[in-house]
């Protein structure tokens, strides 16, 4: 079920009404479990069984692990949990990718092997719920979370419908405590949740789908060479599209959760105002970058073993991060490119040290622009279907095809320019604050006007039901 669909509007209205009418807290939680499985099963009912299976397994493994006093014994149960979760993810998401690469390696050795093509449907959101669930056993192993005694609570923590299929990756440790008691009344929480949902849908339906997606699709699907303007416009359209698509989903999830009295953390914090790449990753898909930091980067040594080892660790983490997004080498290159950016930034800091002149606004803006350009270069690999297209796009962006074709209409270029400029203004204005503080400072008429504008624009687009990009991950 998509947030931007009529089915969700009806579903959400029914669930929220029933939820707040119920008095019993356990009954409300039962309702949310059922609603979450209906939400998920509306795509493909059998995959709900898979979701329940992995969740139940982690619940019982967590319980067993919690009883172990010896670290070695805890480690065994953790390894089982990680292995089963990642095997499931690997089978559905990377099965064909691994077979194709195995075939390629054998072919280099002169062995002709034709692997069977596994006709697999990727369970929607598997990368997200696998990480939701894994965070539970990992935190129990780390000793920062005690196992819950309620299977129902854990099932709800993993499957809670607002964040189930495209994040944010909510850790069990952040959600389970919220299930211990019903949410306390909080002035304005429900309406603020509705406004956030409107903002999220506006970003997704109006900005990403209506104003940017078409241009990005046209440019990346073209078989020929493009002039620099169209190449850049296409990449900038995608840079905006993926932000508004994913951040829009996250804000919808946060808003929907608030309407039910739950608090989810921010997943994006104005990333296109980032100055440098470590700053970018503190602002982009925060729930994934902190997950990888806490459960991968730090356990493999982090920056505890010197600068050189830290850079290698960064590359490992970004390699995994790239692969998490999709089973293709283009995603790996995207991750490695970001790993290189981070390593280079770290190296520069070691050589140059802390420079106070970088704090001046014009310098910051220039560095921010440089960060954006480098991020756009990386997006080319993320969006391109293969390396041929990526190479052609990069060549076009840097003036390699002055006689290339022009595909986009003036209107499309204007749309991309206006949306990107608006995005920069908002991100730079709010980079050191939060959306809540910004709204607090706005007069009532402005809040009302902005809400009317966003909801009106959504109605005018008729909320077309394109899937969110991150569903495929």
């Amino acid at each position, binding site marked *: *079920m*998509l947030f931007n*669909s*009529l*089915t*969700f509007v*009806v579903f959400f209205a029914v669930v929220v009404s029933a939820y707040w009418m119920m008095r019993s807290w356990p009954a409300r939680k039962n309702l949310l479990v059922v609603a979450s499985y209906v939400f998920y099963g*509306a*795509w*493909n009912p059998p995959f709900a069984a898979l979701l329940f299976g992995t969740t139940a397994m982690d619940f019982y493994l967590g319980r067993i692990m919690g009883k172990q006093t010896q670290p070695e014994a805890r480690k065994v149960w953790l390894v089982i949990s990680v292995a089963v979760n990642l095997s499931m993810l690997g089978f559905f998401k990377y099965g064909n990718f691994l077979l194709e690469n195995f075939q390629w390696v054998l072919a280099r050795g002169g062995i002709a092997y034709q692997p069977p093509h596994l006709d697999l449907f990727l369970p929607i959101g598997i990368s997200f719920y696998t990480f939701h669930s894994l965070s539970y056993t990992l*935190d129990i192993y780390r000793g*920062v*979370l*005690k196992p*819950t005694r309620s299977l129902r609570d854990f099932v709800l923590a993993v499957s809670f419908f607002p964040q189930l299929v495209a994040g944010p990756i909510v850790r069990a*440790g*952040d959600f*389970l405590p919220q299930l211990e008691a019903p949410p306390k009344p909080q*002035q*304005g*929480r*429900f*309406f*603020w949740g*509705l406004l956030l949902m409107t903002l999220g849908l506006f970003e997704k339906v*109006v900005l990403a789908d*209506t*104003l940017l997606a*078409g241009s990005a699709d046209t440019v990346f699907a073209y*078989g*020929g060479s493009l002039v620099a303007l169209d190449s850049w416009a296409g990449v900038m359209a995608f840079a905006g599209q993926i932000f508004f698509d994913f951040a829009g989903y996250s804000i919808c999830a*946060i808003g929907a959760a*608030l309407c039910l009295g739950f*608090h989810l*953390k921010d997943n994006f914090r104005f990333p296109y105002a980032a100055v440098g790449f470590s700053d970018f990753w503190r602002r982009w898909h925060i729930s994934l970058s902190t997950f990888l930091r806490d459960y991968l980067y730090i356990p493999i040594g982090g920056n505890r073993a010197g600068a050189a080892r830290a850079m290698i660790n960064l590359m490992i983490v970004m390699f995994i991060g790239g692969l998490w997004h999709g089973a293709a080498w283009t995603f790996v290159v995207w991750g490695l490119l970001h790993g290189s950016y981070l390593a280079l930034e770290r190296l520069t800091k070691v050589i140059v040290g802390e420079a106070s002149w970088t704090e001046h606004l014009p310098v910051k803006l220039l560095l921010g622009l440089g960060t954006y350009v480098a991020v756009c270069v990386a997006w080319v690999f993320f969006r391109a279907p293969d390396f041929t297209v990526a190479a052609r796009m990069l060549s076009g962006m840097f003036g390699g095809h002055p006689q290339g*074709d*022009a*595909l*986009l*209409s*003036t*209107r499309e270029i*204007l*749309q991309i320019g206006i949306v990107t400029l608006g995005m920069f203004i908002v991100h730079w204005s709010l980079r050191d604050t939060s959306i*809540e*503080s910004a*709204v*607090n400072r706005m007069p*009532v008429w402005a*809040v*009302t006007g902005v*809400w*009317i504008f966003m*909801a*009106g624009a959504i*109605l*005018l*687009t*008729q909320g077309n*039901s394109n899937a969110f990009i991150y569903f495929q991950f």
Partner: protein
Amino acid sequence: MHLSISNFERVIPTKPWRGITVSVVMTLVVATAAWELYCRSLAYGPSLNDTGDLWAEARRRVEPESLVIVGDSRALFDSDLDELEKGLGKRPVQLAQPGSTAFPVLSDLINDTRFHGTIICSVVPRLFFAPPGSPPMNRSEKSVRRSHTQTYAQRASHVLGIYLEKWFACMKQDDLTLGALLEKLPIPNRPYAQVPPLLPPYFASLDRERRARMVEQCAQPGKLQDRVKHRWARLFTPPPPPSFIPKDAFAEKMHAAFEARFTDTKALVDKLRARGGKIVFVRFPLSGDLKELEDRTTPRATTWDRLLKETAVPGIYFEDFPELADFTCPEWSHLSAGDSVEFTKRLVPHLRAAFGSEGDVKPVASSP
């Protein structure tokens, strides 16, 4: 008791939220009502959108022995389902789609081994022979794919959407969405930009069975009719070959795709006939400059005549029969709502002759 990592709680901005929400809802209700009235003043009326979900719903109605219409918008506008039911004894399922080639739908139907019904297939050569990867192929393939992958949630949204579309004229997706309105902005393009021509503006209504009817405003001479004609002229003018493939190589590729469509269609027809199914090709009427353009760019001898010869399928070419040729398409490409009923009435005897009795197939048009 859980030992939590953090006790995070979001800040809620302090505002008079109840009042703000009421103001927002009331303004939106008033604005929507005003927009609806404005759309109606422009002659828009409630009509269903021709979405992939509506097509998928129609596809699910196909039974093993169904009568099915496939092809392009001419079959969609010019076939009256009531007249076909009266004349052929079965209510047809309308699967034709605007701007699409019939091939993927034929393939989907005929490769469904349960199907052994009857197919009326419209042939507009530029669309029927469209190569893989072209927009007409993509449109058909997208609908076929939707019918196979449609989720329960999508079905539910579709049903809910229909109730809104039945009541609100402003729900016309092709013309009145934000995206469509932006497309209409008169902003000139770079002279060398390869911007594809726009689809024609609103000129039809559609019902739950996907029966399309030209709106009266388009059937009468005027601005709308002229705009639609102008768009057809651009859409049916062959685009220049792409710059990134040598001209010879491109011509060879197109020729190969063209030839493949004959052999692939024949293979499908043979498969259908082996199961007792029947098929007829129909060339629906067209007029004016568009007819001249189509006759010139896709000559009958190399397209229609050859298709009939290669597949041995009966064909009905409107020009071959005075009673079918006696129609004028107001916007050159489709019949008016009234004429479509009369045309179908006159088409029925030819269809019955083509389908023959006891499975015989009799060519009724002058096959080459």
